[in-house]
Protein backbone atom coordinates (compact mmCIF):
# COMPACT_ATOMS: atom_id res chain seq x y z
CA UNK A 1 0.00 0.00 0.00
CA UNK A 2 1.37 3.40 -0.86
CA UNK A 3 1.37 6.25 1.58
CA UNK A 4 -1.68 7.87 -0.03
CA UNK A 5 -3.76 4.72 0.21
CA UNK A 6 -2.57 4.22 3.72
CA UNK A 7 -3.60 7.74 4.58
CA UNK A 8 -7.13 7.23 3.25
CA UNK A 9 -7.42 3.97 5.13
CA UNK A 10 -6.18 5.50 8.36
CA UNK A 11 -8.60 8.42 8.09
CA UNK A 12 -11.37 5.88 7.85
CA UNK A 13 -10.15 3.98 10.85
CA UNK A 14 -9.47 6.84 13.16
CA UNK A 15 -10.98 10.14 12.07
CA UNK A 16 -9.73 12.07 15.06
CA UNK A 17 -6.09 11.07 14.55
CA UNK A 18 -3.89 13.78 13.12
CA UNK A 19 -1.93 12.43 10.18
CA UNK A 20 1.40 13.86 9.14
CA UNK A 21 3.12 13.26 5.86
CA UNK A 22 6.74 12.39 5.53
CA UNK A 23 8.74 9.37 4.54
CA UNK A 24 6.24 7.38 6.51
CA UNK A 25 2.72 8.37 7.52
CA UNK A 26 2.63 9.46 11.12
CA UNK A 27 -0.57 9.10 13.09
CA UNK A 28 -0.88 11.15 16.26
CA UNK A 29 -3.29 9.79 18.76
CA UNK A 30 -4.22 10.16 22.41
CA UNK A 31 -3.65 7.69 25.24
CA UNK A 32 -7.40 7.08 25.44
CA UNK A 33 -7.86 6.12 21.79
CA UNK A 34 -4.50 4.43 21.58
CA UNK A 35 -5.12 0.78 22.37
CA UNK A 36 -8.16 0.17 20.09
CA UNK A 37 -6.33 1.96 17.32
CA UNK A 38 -3.29 -0.29 17.70
CA UNK A 39 -5.54 -3.36 17.71
CA UNK A 40 -7.07 -2.21 14.46
CA UNK A 41 -3.71 -1.58 12.90
CA UNK A 42 -2.60 -5.07 13.81
CA UNK A 43 -5.78 -6.91 12.83
CA UNK A 44 -7.33 -4.97 9.95
CA UNK A 45 -6.99 -7.26 6.92
CA UNK A 46 -5.84 -4.46 4.67
CA UNK A 47 -3.25 -3.14 7.11
CA UNK A 48 -1.84 -6.12 9.08
CA UNK A 49 0.87 -4.17 10.85
CA UNK A 50 2.41 -7.24 12.44
CA UNK A 51 5.98 -6.06 12.85
CA UNK A 52 6.79 -3.47 15.49
CA UNK A 53 10.35 -2.65 14.64
CA UNK A 54 10.99 0.29 16.89
CA UNK A 55 9.43 1.52 20.08
CA UNK A 56 10.81 4.50 21.83
CA UNK A 57 10.03 7.66 23.69
CA UNK A 58 11.10 11.26 23.26
CA UNK A 59 11.22 13.77 26.06
CA UNK A 60 10.09 17.16 24.76
CA UNK A 61 10.34 18.70 28.25
CA UNK A 62 6.69 19.82 28.14
CA UNK A 63 5.46 16.38 27.27
CA UNK A 64 6.66 12.91 26.41
CA UNK A 65 5.94 11.31 23.07
CA UNK A 66 5.79 7.57 22.59
CA UNK A 67 6.83 6.58 19.07
CA UNK A 68 5.87 3.26 17.54
CA UNK A 69 7.30 2.28 14.18
CA UNK A 70 5.13 -0.31 12.53
CA UNK A 71 5.56 -2.37 9.46
CA UNK A 72 3.63 -5.07 7.70
CA UNK A 73 5.44 -8.20 6.63
CA UNK A 74 2.70 -9.06 4.14
CA UNK A 75 2.20 -5.67 2.46
CA UNK A 76 5.55 -4.05 3.23
CA UNK A 77 4.12 -0.68 4.19
CA UNK A 78 5.39 1.25 7.17
CA UNK A 79 3.87 3.82 9.44
CA UNK A 80 4.54 5.64 12.66
CA UNK A 81 2.17 6.04 15.59
CA UNK A 82 2.78 8.75 18.15
CA UNK A 83 1.13 9.25 21.49
CA UNK A 84 1.55 12.39 23.49
CA UNK A 85 1.92 11.76 27.21
CA UNK A 86 1.76 14.00 30.20
CA UNK A 87 5.27 14.67 31.48
CA UNK A 88 4.22 14.63 35.13
CA UNK A 89 2.35 11.34 35.02
CA UNK A 90 3.18 9.48 31.83
CA UNK A 91 0.89 6.52 31.40
CA UNK A 92 -0.06 4.50 28.38
CA UNK A 93 -1.54 1.10 27.71
CA UNK A 94 0.95 -1.61 26.93
CA UNK A 95 1.02 -3.20 23.50
CA UNK A 96 3.04 -6.20 24.61
CA UNK A 97 0.12 -8.56 24.08
CA UNK A 98 -0.18 -7.39 20.48
CA UNK A 99 3.52 -7.43 19.66
CA UNK A 100 5.63 -9.54 21.99
CA UNK A 101 8.74 -7.53 21.26
CA UNK A 102 7.12 -4.56 23.01
CA UNK A 103 7.56 -6.31 26.34
CA UNK A 104 11.31 -5.75 26.35
CA UNK A 105 11.21 -2.38 24.68
CA UNK A 106 8.61 -1.10 27.10
CA UNK A 107 10.67 -2.21 30.05
CA UNK A 108 13.56 -0.24 28.60
CA UNK A 109 11.41 2.85 28.10
CA UNK A 110 9.95 2.41 31.58
CA UNK A 111 13.29 2.70 33.27
CA UNK A 112 14.89 5.24 30.98
CA UNK A 113 11.88 7.58 30.72
CA UNK A 114 9.63 6.55 33.57
CA UNK A 115 6.64 5.86 31.37
CA UNK A 116 4.19 3.64 33.18
CA UNK A 117 2.79 0.96 30.92
CA UNK A 118 -0.60 -0.11 32.19
CA UNK A 119 -1.25 -3.85 32.25
CA UNK A 120 2.30 -4.71 31.32
CA UNK A 121 2.93 -8.30 32.47
CA UNK A 122 6.34 -7.72 34.01
CA UNK A 123 7.23 -4.06 34.44
CA UNK A 124 10.56 -4.11 36.24
CA UNK A 125 13.92 -2.47 35.75
CA UNK A 126 15.79 -4.24 32.97
CA UNK A 127 19.07 -2.42 32.71
CA UNK A 128 19.56 -0.20 35.73
CA UNK A 129 20.74 -1.55 39.06
CA UNK A 130 19.04 -1.32 42.44
CA UNK A 131 17.94 2.06 43.68
CA UNK A 132 17.27 3.65 40.33
CA UNK A 133 13.51 3.49 40.49
CA UNK A 134 12.07 6.91 39.78
CA UNK A 135 15.25 8.32 38.29
CA UNK A 136 15.01 8.35 34.53
CA UNK A 137 18.36 8.86 32.85
CA UNK A 138 17.17 9.71 29.36
CA UNK A 139 14.86 12.49 30.53
CA UNK A 140 16.22 15.90 29.70
CA UNK A 141 16.02 17.12 33.29
CA UNK A 142 18.03 14.21 34.64
CA UNK A 143 21.03 15.19 36.70
CA UNK A 144 23.38 12.68 38.24
CA UNK A 145 26.04 14.48 40.23
CA UNK A 146 28.00 11.29 40.99
CA UNK A 147 28.21 9.41 37.74
CA UNK A 148 28.16 12.27 35.30
CA UNK A 149 31.48 12.87 33.58
CA UNK A 150 32.02 16.49 32.67
CA UNK A 151 34.67 17.07 30.06
Amino acid at each position, binding site marked *: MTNEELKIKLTELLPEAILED*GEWITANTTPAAFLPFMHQLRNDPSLLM*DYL*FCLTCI*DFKTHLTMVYHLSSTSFRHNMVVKVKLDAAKPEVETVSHIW*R*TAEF*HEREVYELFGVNFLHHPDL*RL*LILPDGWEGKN*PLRKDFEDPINMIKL
Partner: protein
Amino acid sequence: MYRETEVIQDLATAGEGDMVINVGPQHPATHGVLHLVITLNGETIKKVEPHLGYIHRSIEKMCESLSYRQFIYVTSRMDYLSAHINNHACAMCVEKGLQVEVPPRAQVIRVLMDELTRIASHELWWGAMAMDLGAFTPFFHAFRERESINDIMEETCGARLTMNYMVPGGVMHDLHPNFQQRVKDFLQLYKRKIHEYDELVTGNIIFQNRMKNIGVLKAEDAISYGCSGPTARGSGVSSDIRKLYPYEIYNKLEFDEVLETGCDSFARYMVRIREMQQSIRIVEQLIDNIPEGDFQAKTKAVLKLPKGEFYTRVETARGELGVYIVSEGGTTPYRIKFRSPGFSNLSVLDHIARGSKIGDLVAMMGTLDLVIPDIDR
Protein backbone atom coordinates in the same frame (compact mmCIF):
# COMPACT_ATOMS: atom_id res chain seq x y z
CA MET B 1 20.42 -6.02 36.33
CA TYR B 2 19.62 -8.65 38.87
CA ARG B 3 18.42 -7.35 42.19
CA GLU B 4 18.55 -9.02 45.55
CA THR B 5 14.79 -8.92 45.93
CA GLU B 6 14.49 -10.89 42.73
CA VAL B 7 16.63 -13.71 44.06
CA ILE B 8 14.08 -14.37 46.73
CA GLN B 9 11.24 -13.97 44.28
CA ASP B 10 12.78 -16.41 41.82
CA LEU B 11 13.36 -18.97 44.52
CA ALA B 12 9.80 -18.56 45.71
CA THR B 13 8.26 -19.11 42.28
CA ALA B 14 10.44 -22.11 41.53
CA GLY B 15 8.55 -25.35 41.98
CA GLU B 16 9.42 -28.57 43.73
CA GLY B 17 12.84 -29.85 42.66
CA ASP B 18 13.61 -26.76 40.61
CA MET B 19 16.95 -25.12 40.60
CA VAL B 20 17.59 -21.46 39.90
CA ILE B 21 20.94 -21.01 38.30
CA ASN B 22 22.81 -17.93 37.18
CA VAL B 23 24.45 -18.09 33.81
CA GLY B 24 26.63 -15.05 33.66
CA PRO B 25 27.45 -12.21 33.88
CA GLN B 26 30.78 -13.97 33.71
CA HIS B 27 30.22 -17.18 31.85
CA PRO B 28 32.02 -18.66 28.87
CA ALA B 29 28.85 -19.18 26.85
CA THR B 30 27.41 -15.70 27.02
CA HIS B 31 30.25 -14.08 25.04
CA GLY B 32 30.23 -11.05 27.25
CA VAL B 33 28.37 -9.87 30.26
CA LEU B 34 24.91 -11.16 29.59
CA HIS B 35 23.23 -12.46 32.70
CA LEU B 36 20.63 -15.18 32.38
CA VAL B 37 18.69 -16.49 35.33
CA ILE B 38 17.56 -19.96 34.44
CA THR B 39 15.03 -22.06 36.29
CA LEU B 40 15.92 -25.67 35.76
CA ASN B 41 14.25 -28.93 36.48
CA GLY B 42 17.08 -31.41 36.26
CA GLU B 43 18.60 -30.57 32.92
CA THR B 44 15.40 -29.16 31.45
CA ILE B 45 14.89 -25.44 31.24
CA LYS B 46 11.66 -24.07 32.62
CA LYS B 47 12.34 -20.38 32.34
CA VAL B 48 15.07 -18.09 31.08
CA GLU B 49 15.16 -14.51 32.21
CA PRO B 50 17.76 -12.18 30.73
CA HIS B 51 19.13 -9.40 32.90
CA LEU B 52 20.92 -6.63 31.13
CA GLY B 53 22.86 -3.55 31.93
CA TYR B 54 26.30 -4.83 32.82
CA ILE B 55 27.86 -3.01 29.88
CA HIS B 56 25.25 -0.30 29.38
CA ARG B 57 27.02 2.94 28.49
CA SER B 58 23.90 4.88 27.55
CA ILE B 59 25.20 5.65 24.10
CA GLU B 60 21.88 7.30 23.28
CA LYS B 61 22.40 9.88 26.01
CA MET B 62 26.04 10.38 25.07
CA CYS B 63 25.09 11.08 21.49
CA GLU B 64 22.79 13.87 22.59
CA SER B 65 25.83 15.92 23.53
CA LEU B 66 27.95 15.08 20.49
CA SER B 67 27.80 16.78 17.12
CA TYR B 68 26.65 15.00 14.00
CA ARG B 69 30.21 14.29 12.97
CA GLN B 70 31.29 13.14 16.39
CA PHE B 71 28.52 10.77 17.38
CA ILE B 72 29.30 8.26 14.66
CA TYR B 73 32.46 6.96 16.30
CA VAL B 74 30.51 5.93 19.41
CA THR B 75 28.30 3.62 17.41
CA SER B 76 31.29 1.43 16.52
CA ARG B 77 31.18 0.41 20.16
CA MET B 78 27.65 -0.93 19.95
CA ASP B 79 27.81 -3.91 17.69
CA TYR B 80 31.56 -3.98 17.50
CA LEU B 81 31.55 -6.87 15.04
CA SER B 82 29.71 -4.86 12.43
CA ALA B 83 31.18 -1.48 13.26
CA HIS B 84 31.21 -0.34 9.66
CA ILE B 85 27.54 -1.06 9.22
CA ASN B 86 26.63 0.83 12.38
CA ASN B 87 28.62 3.82 11.21
CA HIS B 88 27.04 3.50 7.82
CA ALA B 89 23.53 3.67 9.29
CA CYS B 90 24.38 6.80 11.27
CA ALA B 91 26.08 8.48 8.34
CA MET B 92 23.10 7.68 6.16
CA CYS B 93 20.70 9.12 8.69
CA VAL B 94 22.63 12.38 8.86
CA GLU B 95 22.81 12.48 5.07
CA LYS B 96 19.08 12.01 4.91
CA GLY B 97 18.64 15.05 7.10
CA LEU B 98 21.18 17.11 5.20
CA GLN B 99 19.93 15.82 1.85
CA VAL B 100 23.45 15.19 0.68
CA GLU B 101 24.05 13.04 -2.36
CA VAL B 102 26.81 10.54 -1.72
CA PRO B 103 29.22 10.16 -4.66
CA PRO B 104 29.02 6.80 -6.45
CA ARG B 105 32.55 5.83 -5.50
CA ALA B 106 31.79 6.35 -1.83
CA GLN B 107 28.64 4.28 -2.16
CA VAL B 108 30.54 1.39 -3.65
CA ILE B 109 33.25 1.63 -1.01
CA ARG B 110 30.64 1.64 1.71
CA VAL B 111 28.89 -1.43 0.35
CA LEU B 112 32.21 -3.23 -0.08
CA MET B 113 33.16 -2.47 3.51
CA ASP B 114 29.74 -3.51 4.77
CA GLU B 115 29.91 -6.84 3.05
CA LEU B 116 33.47 -7.52 4.18
CA THR B 117 32.37 -6.68 7.72
CA ARG B 118 29.44 -9.03 7.38
CA ILE B 119 31.75 -11.85 6.33
CA ALA B 120 34.14 -11.11 9.17
CA SER B 121 31.29 -11.03 11.66
CA HIS B 122 29.85 -14.30 10.44
CA GLU B 123 33.30 -15.89 10.54
CA LEU B 124 33.67 -15.00 14.17
CA TRP B 125 30.15 -16.16 14.88
CA TRP B 126 30.88 -19.48 13.21
CA GLY B 127 33.95 -20.08 15.32
CA ALA B 128 32.29 -18.99 18.53
CA MET B 129 29.23 -21.06 17.74
CA ALA B 130 31.34 -24.18 17.30
CA MET B 131 33.13 -23.38 20.52
CA ASP B 132 29.82 -23.12 22.34
CA LEU B 133 29.15 -26.65 21.22
CA GLY B 134 32.52 -27.80 22.52
CA ALA B 135 34.57 -27.88 19.32
CA PHE B 136 37.55 -25.60 19.75
CA THR B 137 39.38 -26.07 16.51
CA PRO B 138 36.93 -24.23 14.20
CA PHE B 139 37.36 -21.11 16.30
CA PHE B 140 40.98 -20.76 15.25
CA HIS B 141 40.27 -21.71 11.67
CA ALA B 142 37.61 -19.02 11.49
CA PHE B 143 40.04 -16.47 12.81
CA ARG B 144 42.43 -17.13 9.96
CA GLU B 145 39.93 -15.78 7.42
CA ARG B 146 38.68 -13.06 9.72
CA GLU B 147 42.21 -11.91 10.33
CA SER B 148 42.84 -11.33 6.65
CA ILE B 149 39.71 -9.16 6.48
CA ASN B 150 40.92 -7.27 9.51
CA ASP B 151 44.24 -6.68 7.79
CA ILE B 152 42.43 -5.23 4.79
CA MET B 153 40.45 -2.97 7.10
CA GLU B 154 43.57 -1.94 8.93
CA GLU B 155 45.24 -0.90 5.73
CA THR B 156 42.38 1.18 4.40
CA CYS B 157 40.61 2.42 7.52
CA GLY B 158 43.46 2.53 9.99
CA ALA B 159 41.99 0.26 12.62
CA ARG B 160 40.91 -3.32 12.95
CA LEU B 161 37.70 -3.12 14.93
CA THR B 162 36.48 0.41 15.62
CA MET B 163 37.27 2.02 12.31
CA ASN B 164 35.10 5.17 12.23
CA TYR B 165 35.49 5.12 8.48
CA MET B 166 32.07 6.28 7.33
CA VAL B 167 31.50 10.00 7.67
CA PRO B 168 28.47 12.05 6.61
CA GLY B 169 28.83 12.50 2.89
CA GLY B 170 31.05 9.56 2.11
CA VAL B 171 34.03 7.84 3.61
CA MET B 172 36.99 9.24 5.49
CA HIS B 173 39.86 8.14 3.26
CA ASP B 174 40.06 6.86 -0.23
CA LEU B 175 40.72 3.17 -0.68
CA HIS B 176 44.28 2.06 -0.16
CA PRO B 177 46.07 1.25 -3.43
CA ASN B 178 46.51 -2.34 -2.28
CA PHE B 179 42.88 -2.78 -1.41
CA GLN B 180 41.69 -4.48 -4.58
CA GLN B 181 44.57 -6.92 -4.67
CA ARG B 182 44.20 -7.85 -1.05
CA VAL B 183 40.48 -8.38 -1.32
CA LYS B 184 41.09 -10.66 -4.28
CA ASP B 185 43.65 -12.56 -2.24
CA PHE B 186 41.12 -12.90 0.52
CA LEU B 187 38.49 -14.20 -1.89
CA GLN B 188 40.95 -16.82 -3.07
CA LEU B 189 41.79 -17.84 0.47
CA TYR B 190 38.14 -18.01 1.36
CA LYS B 191 37.26 -20.18 -1.62
CA ARG B 192 40.14 -22.50 -0.88
CA LYS B 193 39.04 -22.97 2.72
CA ILE B 194 35.26 -22.85 2.55
CA HIS B 195 34.85 -26.63 2.22
CA GLU B 196 36.58 -27.05 5.56
CA TYR B 197 33.61 -25.42 7.23
CA ASP B 198 31.41 -28.23 6.02
CA GLU B 199 33.92 -30.90 6.91
CA LEU B 200 34.59 -29.64 10.39
CA VAL B 201 31.19 -28.45 11.52
CA THR B 202 28.25 -28.36 9.12
CA GLY B 203 28.40 -31.96 8.00
CA ASN B 204 29.35 -33.34 11.38
CA ILE B 205 26.70 -35.71 12.65
CA ILE B 206 27.09 -34.64 16.27
CA PHE B 207 26.68 -31.02 15.28
CA GLN B 208 23.62 -31.70 13.16
CA ASN B 209 21.97 -33.64 15.93
CA ARG B 210 22.69 -30.83 18.34
CA MET B 211 21.12 -28.26 16.01
CA LYS B 212 18.20 -29.85 14.22
CA ASN B 213 14.75 -29.40 15.76
CA ILE B 214 16.24 -27.39 18.58
CA GLY B 215 15.11 -23.89 19.45
CA VAL B 216 12.14 -23.89 17.11
CA LEU B 217 11.00 -20.35 16.33
CA LYS B 218 7.86 -20.21 14.21
CA ALA B 219 7.49 -17.48 11.60
CA GLU B 220 4.64 -15.68 13.36
CA ASP B 221 6.57 -15.69 16.62
CA ALA B 222 9.64 -14.35 14.90
CA ILE B 223 7.58 -11.45 13.55
CA SER B 224 5.79 -10.82 16.82
CA TYR B 225 9.04 -10.79 18.76
CA GLY B 226 10.52 -8.35 16.27
CA CYS B 227 13.31 -10.66 15.21
CA SER B 228 15.32 -9.61 12.22
CA GLY B 229 18.31 -10.68 10.25
CA PRO B 230 19.38 -14.32 10.09
CA THR B 231 17.29 -15.13 13.17
CA ALA B 232 14.09 -14.20 11.32
CA ARG B 233 15.24 -15.53 7.98
CA GLY B 234 15.88 -18.92 9.56
CA SER B 235 12.15 -19.01 10.20
CA GLY B 236 11.34 -18.10 6.62
CA VAL B 237 10.50 -14.46 7.35
CA SER B 238 11.78 -12.25 4.58
CA SER B 239 13.49 -9.44 6.45
CA ASP B 240 16.58 -8.43 4.52
CA ILE B 241 16.57 -4.64 4.48
CA ARG B 242 19.00 -4.73 1.59
CA LYS B 243 16.27 -6.32 -0.54
CA LEU B 244 13.12 -4.87 0.96
CA TYR B 245 14.15 -1.24 1.37
CA PRO B 246 17.34 -1.00 -0.68
CA TYR B 247 19.82 1.65 0.29
CA GLU B 248 23.01 2.81 -1.43
CA ILE B 249 23.52 0.63 -4.50
CA TYR B 250 22.01 -2.58 -3.23
CA ASN B 251 19.17 -2.47 -5.76
CA LYS B 252 21.71 -2.63 -8.59
CA LEU B 253 23.49 -5.66 -7.21
CA GLU B 254 22.77 -9.29 -7.83
CA PHE B 255 22.37 -11.28 -4.68
CA ASP B 256 19.75 -13.48 -3.11
CA GLU B 257 18.01 -13.06 0.16
CA VAL B 258 18.86 -16.22 2.06
CA LEU B 259 15.76 -17.88 3.44
CA GLU B 260 15.52 -21.16 5.31
CA THR B 261 12.25 -22.67 6.40
CA GLY B 262 13.55 -25.05 9.04
CA CYS B 263 12.74 -22.60 11.87
CA ASP B 264 15.30 -24.38 14.10
CA SER B 265 18.85 -23.67 15.15
CA PHE B 266 20.21 -25.43 12.11
CA ALA B 267 18.19 -23.21 9.77
CA ARG B 268 19.59 -20.11 11.45
CA TYR B 269 23.05 -21.60 11.17
CA MET B 270 22.61 -22.33 7.47
CA VAL B 271 21.30 -18.83 6.80
CA ARG B 272 24.52 -17.33 8.08
CA ILE B 273 26.71 -19.80 6.23
CA ARG B 274 24.89 -19.11 2.98
CA GLU B 275 24.82 -15.39 3.64
CA MET B 276 28.60 -15.37 3.70
CA GLN B 277 28.56 -16.72 0.17
CA GLN B 278 26.11 -14.04 -0.92
CA SER B 279 28.38 -11.39 0.55
CA ILE B 280 31.29 -12.91 -1.33
CA ARG B 281 29.15 -12.63 -4.45
CA ILE B 282 28.54 -8.94 -3.82
CA VAL B 283 32.21 -8.28 -3.17
CA GLU B 284 33.12 -10.09 -6.38
CA GLN B 285 30.69 -7.97 -8.37
CA LEU B 286 32.03 -4.73 -6.99
CA ILE B 287 35.73 -5.26 -6.56
CA ASP B 288 36.56 -4.71 -10.23
CA ASN B 289 33.92 -2.06 -10.78
CA ILE B 290 34.76 0.67 -8.32
CA PRO B 291 33.91 3.91 -10.13
CA GLU B 292 36.40 6.75 -10.16
CA GLY B 293 35.47 10.01 -8.52
CA ASP B 294 35.20 11.65 -5.16
CA PHE B 295 35.07 9.53 -2.06
CA GLN B 296 33.37 12.24 -0.04
CA ALA B 297 30.71 14.77 -0.86
CA LYS B 298 31.35 18.37 0.08
CA THR B 299 29.73 19.10 3.41
CA LYS B 300 29.88 22.05 5.72
CA ALA B 301 32.34 22.01 8.58
CA VAL B 302 29.54 22.24 11.13
CA LEU B 303 26.57 20.08 10.32
CA LYS B 304 23.09 21.24 11.23
CA LEU B 305 20.11 19.00 10.63
CA PRO B 306 16.77 20.67 9.95
CA LYS B 307 14.02 20.25 12.52
CA GLY B 308 12.41 16.91 12.03
CA GLU B 309 12.74 13.19 12.44
CA PHE B 310 14.92 10.89 10.41
CA TYR B 311 14.92 7.14 10.44
CA THR B 312 17.22 4.86 8.52
CA ARG B 313 17.31 1.10 8.48
CA VAL B 314 20.25 -0.99 7.46
CA GLU B 315 20.99 -4.67 7.58
CA THR B 316 23.84 -5.45 9.95
CA ALA B 317 25.31 -8.89 10.37
CA ARG B 318 22.80 -9.51 13.15
CA GLY B 319 19.70 -7.98 11.66
CA GLU B 320 17.96 -4.70 11.25
CA LEU B 321 19.60 -1.66 12.77
CA GLY B 322 17.45 1.41 12.91
CA VAL B 323 18.81 4.87 13.62
CA TYR B 324 16.18 7.36 14.66
CA ILE B 325 17.31 10.95 14.99
CA VAL B 326 15.01 13.63 16.31
CA SER B 327 16.43 17.02 15.48
CA GLU B 328 15.39 20.38 16.83
CA GLY B 329 17.56 22.16 14.29
CA GLY B 330 20.73 22.28 16.36
CA THR B 331 24.18 20.88 15.85
CA THR B 332 23.53 17.93 18.13
CA PRO B 333 20.73 15.40 17.97
CA TYR B 334 17.85 16.16 20.31
CA ARG B 335 17.12 12.50 20.78
CA ILE B 336 18.70 9.53 19.12
CA LYS B 337 17.49 5.99 19.28
CA PHE B 338 19.27 2.93 18.05
CA ARG B 339 16.97 0.07 17.32
CA SER B 340 19.49 -2.68 17.80
CA PRO B 341 18.86 -6.11 16.32
CA GLY B 342 20.27 -7.97 19.31
CA PHE B 343 17.79 -6.52 21.77
CA SER B 344 14.78 -7.93 19.96
CA ASN B 345 16.54 -11.16 19.11
CA LEU B 346 17.41 -11.71 22.77
CA SER B 347 13.81 -11.30 23.85
CA VAL B 348 12.93 -14.45 21.95
CA LEU B 349 15.37 -16.59 23.93
CA ASP B 350 12.95 -17.41 26.72
CA HIS B 351 10.32 -18.42 24.21
CA ILE B 352 12.50 -20.87 22.28
CA ALA B 353 14.52 -22.23 25.18
CA ARG B 354 11.70 -23.50 27.37
CA GLY B 355 11.63 -27.25 27.58
CA SER B 356 15.04 -27.86 26.07
CA LYS B 357 18.25 -28.93 27.77
CA ILE B 358 20.86 -26.63 29.21
CA GLY B 359 23.33 -27.63 26.52
CA ASP B 360 20.83 -26.52 23.90
CA LEU B 361 20.47 -23.13 25.51
CA VAL B 362 24.11 -22.48 24.76
CA ALA B 363 23.61 -23.58 21.16
CA MET B 364 20.56 -21.36 20.83
CA MET B 365 22.38 -18.35 22.15
CA GLY B 366 25.03 -19.13 19.59
CA THR B 367 22.54 -19.17 16.73
CA LEU B 368 20.93 -15.93 17.88
CA ASP B 369 24.42 -14.43 17.56
CA LEU B 370 24.19 -12.11 20.51
CA VAL B 371 26.66 -9.28 20.89
CA ILE B 372 26.12 -7.89 24.34
CA PRO B 373 27.23 -4.27 23.82
CA ASP B 374 24.73 -4.18 20.98
CA ILE B 375 21.96 -5.26 23.32
CA ASP B 376 22.95 -2.98 26.16
CA ARG B 377 24.15 0.01 24.12
